[in-house]
């Protein structure tokens, strides 16, 4: 079922560098130590800058918030905080919450002894035992339902979809039970569950393993959805999702697990309902999330060189939209470009377009432009796959046209 899941591991988000990255890509060296693996990775800071990891002392932004261009690059190794990869940040958040609350438990395929297909639950089974980190049979429908039943009766389970796409098999449970049951029970039962897993277009994983399910899930009432994009927000959102009394779907991206970032040592929890200002600007609002954030930041670099000053917002909360942050930006720039990896038809971008038009139409100087993935099953061939998702050059062109 999960044949190809590891291929994306280690692949970079930086398209322009894909050649050099490919040559360095490490395939599944799980036998080796982490540091060995890290050494050969190219790392993208959360502001989208590329950092070659060959010099380990090279700085990364301290957190994912709001740094203009390269101005935040002056951190140093002596800075407080600790550096880790995105999957480690998720793991750290999970572990902290499991330490904090014994009702928090994990269930899914290979989450226990194996440590999760992307190592997000690495070491947890050893620490917390097999029942708290439960390896389930391959039965998405039933173990997701089981998580919901456990949530109804007092636990706070995190259900991992080994690949987000597999959760299509659990769609009924996610929709009818996760989403609706609090309501149909007249508010009697809460479903404090987190459903999470790797999704998005990876590196030639084929159609079924390259799905963006946020568009499928967005119209389910009663569910919150967030997408993480940096180690900092991955950890903070994971912790917030676990603490929420609502069912939350946390979207991770197969190509982002190896992003490295320095994050604070002290505990922090993010808001599930807030967008993240990645780069303040004046000319155009670019709304994006998950992996496309990095394509946008690459384009932003070019745009800045061309004299544009784009404002980049990682919307993070896919449901509900943070229309407060988004609205303020629209009122400032009067132009909106949406860049998403989701499908064109009925995707997050379509919903976002509608919400902005309904609420801020008077502030718009130009129609909203939405760049989405093509409505095709993600092809296997590298070239075709590349043309399926939005590339930085397209973003540059779109902004140029929008700002004419």
């Amino acid at each position, binding site marked *: 079922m999960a044949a190809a899941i590891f291929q994306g591991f280690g692949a970079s988000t930086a398209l322009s560098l894909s050649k050099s990255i490919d040559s360095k890509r490490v395939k599944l060296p799980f036998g080796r130590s982490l540091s060995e693996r890290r050494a050969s990775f190219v790392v993208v800071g959360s502001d989208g800058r590329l950092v070659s990891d060959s010099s380990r002392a090279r700085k990364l932004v301290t957190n994912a918030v709001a740094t203009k261009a390269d101005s935040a690059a002056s951190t140093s190794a002596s800075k407080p905080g600790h550096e880790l990869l995105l999957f480690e940040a998720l793991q750290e958040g999970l572990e902290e919450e499991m330490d904090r609350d014994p009702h928090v438990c994990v269930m899914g395929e290979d989450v226990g002894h194996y440590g999760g297909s992307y190592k997000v639950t690495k070491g947890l089974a050893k620490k917390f035992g097999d029942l708290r980190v439960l390896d389930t049979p391959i039965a998405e429908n039933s173990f997701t339902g089981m998580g919901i*039943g456990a949530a109804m009766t007092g636990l706070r389970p995190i259900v991992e979809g080994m690949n987000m796409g597999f959760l299509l098999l659990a769609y009924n449970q996610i929709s009818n039970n996760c989403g609706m049951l609090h309501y149909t029970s007249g508010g*009697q039962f809460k479903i404090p569950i987190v459903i999470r897993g790797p999704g998005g277009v990876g590196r030639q994983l084929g159609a079924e393993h390259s799905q963006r399910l946020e568009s499928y899930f967005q119209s389910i009432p009663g569910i919150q959805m967030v997408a993480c994009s940096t180690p900092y927000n991955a950890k903070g959102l994971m912790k917030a999702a676990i603490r*929420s009394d609502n069912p939350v779907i946390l979207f991770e991206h197969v190509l982002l697990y190896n992003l490295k970032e320095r994050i604070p040592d002290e505990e922090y929890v993010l808001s599930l309902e807030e967008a993240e200002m990645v780069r303040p600007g004046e000319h155009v609002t670019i709304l994006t999330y998950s992996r496309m954030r990095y394509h946008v930041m690459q384009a932003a670099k070019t745009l800045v060189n061309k004299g544009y000053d784009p404002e980049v917002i990682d919307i993070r909360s896919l449901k509900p939209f943070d229309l407060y942050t988004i609205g303020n930006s629209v009122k400032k720039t009067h132009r909106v470009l949406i860049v998403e990896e989701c499908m064109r038809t009925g995707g997050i971008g379509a919903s976002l377009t509608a919400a902005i038009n309904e609420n801020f139409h008077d502030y718009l100087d130009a129609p909203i432009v939405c760049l989405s993935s093509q409505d095709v099953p993600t092809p296997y061939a590298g070239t075709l796959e590349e043309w399926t998702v939005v590339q930085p050059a397209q973003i540059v062109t779109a902004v140029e046209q929008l700002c004419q």
Partner: protein
Amino acid sequence: MSAAFSSVRAVCHPGSFAGEKRGPPATAASGKFASGFLGSSGKVWFGALPAYVRAAPSARRRGSFSVVAVSDVVKEKKPKRSSSPPDLLVTKEEGLELYEDMVLGRTFEDMCAQMYYRGKMFGFVHLYNGQEAVSTGFIKLLKQEDCVVSTYRDHVHALSKGVSSRAVMSELFGKTTGCCRGQGGSMHMFSKEHNLLGGFAFIGEGIPIATGAAFTSKYRREVLKEADCDHVTVAFFGDGTCNNGQFYECLNMAALWKLPIVFVVENNLWAIGMSHLRATSDPQIWKKGPAFGMPGVHVDGMDVLKVREVAKEAIGRARRGEGPTLVECETYRFRGHSLADPDELRDPAEKAHYAARDPIVALKKYIRENNLASEAELKAIDKKIDEVIEDAVEFADASPPPSRSQLLENVFADPKGFGIGPDGRYRCEDPKFTEGTAHV
């Protein structure tokens, strides 16, 4: 084949179901039923083919089974009514409790049909008439903390579990006093207080939920170290569900982790218009238990005392931490699938046959024959229930419908899901979204 089976049998040998220590079974009541149904032989089925299999020529070819994992409670002991004092299956109090619960279920459902035709309730309404012995036989053995997971045919499970007739009737009337404030309806009955985890309207989806509830019991005992947590979950579902993957997936997980759960199949022989025999390669559902390493039991679902015997054992097993049990209760629904079902496919003779085996009549007979209670006492119960139901209808009718402000309540347990900030106000007033909301 038989060798493999006997090893299975050894693994999951239902020793606890052999009724050495138990009193004589419910044969006194059932022994006189019309022949042709498994219950008519006066025993929990053991080895011989049940009636519905005997009736099917295609199934008969597969007729010799070497494995059984059923109770021979009944088979081994013949009731000796001459012996004194009679070794009865229930005390007077228990007998009357069962009787009252079954009458409650029946009367409630009959009233639902009336109210439906009078336009007081709408949608799909699935009535439980005829199957009362299953709900009563199991649920009356449960504690308040034990969980029940039901299907779309859930009114009577709710009543048996202790949800008031008023709350259930009001829910059906779509009133705010309903057990789910009018937000659930006929197929979505819930009660947190009574640990009724729901009416689940799609086939099979309740089984994973039940498995999760059972997982919580195990988790509380083993991880949270609540040594006294011996809560059991009972999942009810029908014969049609037993061809659905969730059924098998959950049998596997429940047996794998020895979860405290009882899977109760209410085999009423029909999935709307699909005969069980036309849908199922091997119609003996109970046999799927041993295949997963748990006991499978086949019991006459028209005989509440036999159901109760089996339920006692299965629930006890779960409570002791010995794992799940699959119980197939052979029963029959006296009405169509739902009130919208013209019920044209079922043979009138078949219906008449089962109508003659009405579980309430049978229990009444048992009570009377064993002098557990007088006719007057039973009549008094009937009357009391009539009044309860009348009261429920009056209550539901007089209750207010939900107000508009209720519409957006309960969508999220934490209203931040609506984009509501820490100050309790929307972070952005999206008119499409916020209009009509009052207090969330």
